[in-house]
C-alpha cells in the first residue's frame, strides 16, 4: 500500500528540501555568479545577486594569466590515464575473483582494501625520493602511475561487486556448450560487464581529478593539473574574487557535470560494496 500523502505535507517537504538544498549548493552558485562580475561588483556592499552587468572578462584574464588549457589537459591526461590503466589491470583480477573464487579470494580482496588505508603522508618521502631518482618528478607519467595505484583497490572492488551480480548459471551453460575461455569473456561477460565498467571508470576519473595530495606535492610546472592551478591563487593579490571565481568555475565545471551522472556509483564505490 502506498502511503497516502496530503498535498499540504508534500508542499511543506518540497519547500524545506529545496531551501536546504539551495543553501548547501549556494557556495557553488555564488562562485559561478561572481565569476561573471567585475572585480568591483564582486566586493560590492551590499552583495549583488543577479542585478549586475554580466561579463566574461575574468575568464579571458584567467586564461591569459596562467594557461588554463594546459592545466586542464594535464588533469585530463592524469585522471584519464590513471583510470584507464587501473581498469586494464583490475578487470582481469576482478573477473578472476568473481568467477573463479578460491579460499583466498576474500583475504586478497581485504588485503587490497588495506593498501588503500595507507596514509599518503606516511610514504611521502620515499615516493618523492623515488620520483627524483627515476626522473619522474613533475611528469604526467609519474602521476598517472601513482594515482592508478592509490585508486586500484577501489577499481578492483567496484568491478568485483558488479561482476558478482552477473549470474554464474549463464557461464556454466556456455561452458557446457563448449565455449572457450576467450569466447566466454568476449561474447558473454563483456556485454554484461560494460555498464559496471563504465560506472567504475566514471567514479575513478572523478576521484583522480580531485586528488590533491600527490598532485600538489609531486608537480611543479610541466605536469601541474587543475588542483595546482587553483592552489596558485592561494595568496591574495589585490582584488581577485572575480578572477578566483572564474578559475574555480573552470576547474570544477567538467567534473560537476560528470559527477551528477555518478551518484549511485558513488555509494557503491566508496563503501566498497558495503552499502548498495
Amino acid at each position, binding site marked *: *500500500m502506498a502511503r497516502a500523502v496530503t498535498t499540504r505535507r*508534500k508542499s511543506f517537504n*518540497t519547500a524545506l528540501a*529545496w531551501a*536546504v*538544498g*539551495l543553501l*548547501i*549548493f549556494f*557556495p*557553488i552558485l*555564488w*562562485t559561478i555568479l*561572481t565569476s561573471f562580475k567585475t572585480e568591483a561588483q564582486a566586493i560590492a*556592499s*551590499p*552583495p549583488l545577486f543577479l542585478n549586475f552587468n554580466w561579463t566574461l572578462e575574468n575568464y579571458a584574464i584567467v586564461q591569459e594569466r596562467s594557461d588554463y588549457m594546459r592545466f586542464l589537459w594535464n588533469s585530463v591526461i592524469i585522471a584519464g590515464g590513471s583510470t584507464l590503466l587501473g581498469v586494464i*589491470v*583490475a578487470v*582481469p*583480477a576482478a573477473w*578472476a575473483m568473481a568467477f*573463479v573464487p578460491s579460499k583466498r579470494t576474500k583475504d*586478497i580482496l*581485504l588485503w*587490497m*582494501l*588495506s593498501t588503500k*588505508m*595507507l*596514509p*599518503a*603522508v*606516511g610514504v*611521502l*618521502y*620515499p615516493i618523492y625520493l*623515488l620520483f627524483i631518482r627515476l626522473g619522474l618528478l613533475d611528469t604526467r607519467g609519474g602521476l598517472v602511475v601513482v594515482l592508478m*595505484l592509490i585508486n*586500484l583497490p577501489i577499481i*578492483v572492488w567496484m568491478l568485483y561487486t558488479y561482476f558478482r551480480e552477473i549470474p554464474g548459471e549463464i557461464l556454466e551453460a556456455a561452458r557446457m556448450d563448449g565455449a572457450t575461455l576467450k569466447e566466454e569473456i568476449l561474447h558473454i561477460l563483456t556485454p554484461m560487464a560494460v555498464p559496471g565498467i563504465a560506472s567504475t571508470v566514471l567514479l575513478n576519473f*572523478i576521484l583522480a581529478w*580531485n586528488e*590533491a*595530495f600527490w598532485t*600538489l606535492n609531486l608537480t611543479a610546472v610541466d605536469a601541474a593539473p587543475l*588542483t595546482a592551478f587553483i592552489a596558485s591563487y*592561494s595568496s591574495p593579490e589585490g582584488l*581577485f*574574487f572575480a578572477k578566483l*571565481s572564474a578559475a574555480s568555475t573552470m576547474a*570544477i565545471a567538467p*567534473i560537476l557535470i560528470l*559527477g551528477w551522472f555518478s*551518484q549511485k556509483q*558513488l*555509494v557503491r564505490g566508496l563503501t566498497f560494496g*558495503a*552499502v*548498495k
Partner: protein
Amino acid sequence: MATQHSRSVARLMMAPAVVLLLGWMLVPLTMTLYFSFKKYLPLRGGDLGWVGFDNYIRFVSSSAFWPAVQATLVIVGGVLVITVVLGVLMAMLLDQPMWGQGVVRILVIAPFFVMPTVSALVWKNMFMDPVNGLLAHLWRFFGAEPISWLSEASMTSIVMIVSWQWLPFATLILLTAIQSLDSEQLEAAEMDGAPPLKRFYHIILPHLSRAITIVILIQTIFLLSIFAEIFVTTGGAFGTRTLTYLIFQRVLESQNVGLGSAGGVYAIILANIVAIFLMRIVGKNLDA
C-alpha cells in the same frame, strides 16, 4: 566447478594487480621504516647514521606533537559529528515524497565533486574574508562585528569547510540505506500511534546503524589525511597543524626525513587501527 586449468588462468589474471599493490605497499613502507631509524637531513649532510628509536621519541616529545594530535582529533571529531547528525536529518528529509526530488539531490551532492583546493579557497576568500566575505556582510547586516574566521576561529572554519565537503557523502550513503527500510513497518508503527520521535529511535536509527558505522569509518580514514584544505587556507598556522600537516612540514619543508618518517610510521599505525574495524564490517558483508 572451476577446473585446475581455469584456476591457474585466474591466478595469472590476478597477478598484475597483486604484484603492483604489493610493490606499492612494501617498497615505500620499507623505505619509511628505514629512514625512521636514521638521522637523515638531505640538505644538511645527508645520511648521518643510525639513531635507533631517537626519531620516534623526538617526534612525540616535540612541542608541536600534542597540539597536532589535538587539532587532528578536533577536526576529525567535529566533522564526524556534524556530517553524521546533519546527514541523518538530510537523508530523512530527502526520503520524503516531494516535487523535484532529483534536482534537490543533485544540489545536495554537488559539494562532493568540488576539488578540495577550490572549496577551501572559495570559502576562505568569498565567505570568510573579514572585509569582503559574504559572512562579513551578513554579520554587518545584523549589526555585529565581522569575524576574522581563519585566524580567530581557525578550527571552526576548517571544520565548517570540511563538513561542507563531506556532508554530501554522508547524506548519500544514509539516504541509500534509509531507502531500503521497509515502509510497511513504519506505517504500522504510525498506525499504532507511535509518535515520530519514538519511530525514529526504535525503527529508523537501528536500521541506519550499520550505514552510520560505515560513514564514520570511511570518513575517518579520509579525514585523518586531509591536506589541501589546510595547505591553501592557513598553511598550518593558528593551531590548525594536524598530524598529517606536521609530518608534511618535517619531511618536505624542513627536510628532516628521519623525524618525518617516524611520524609517518605513527600515522600508518593510527590509520591501521581504524582500518581494522572497517575491514571487519566489509569482510562480514562479503560472506553474506
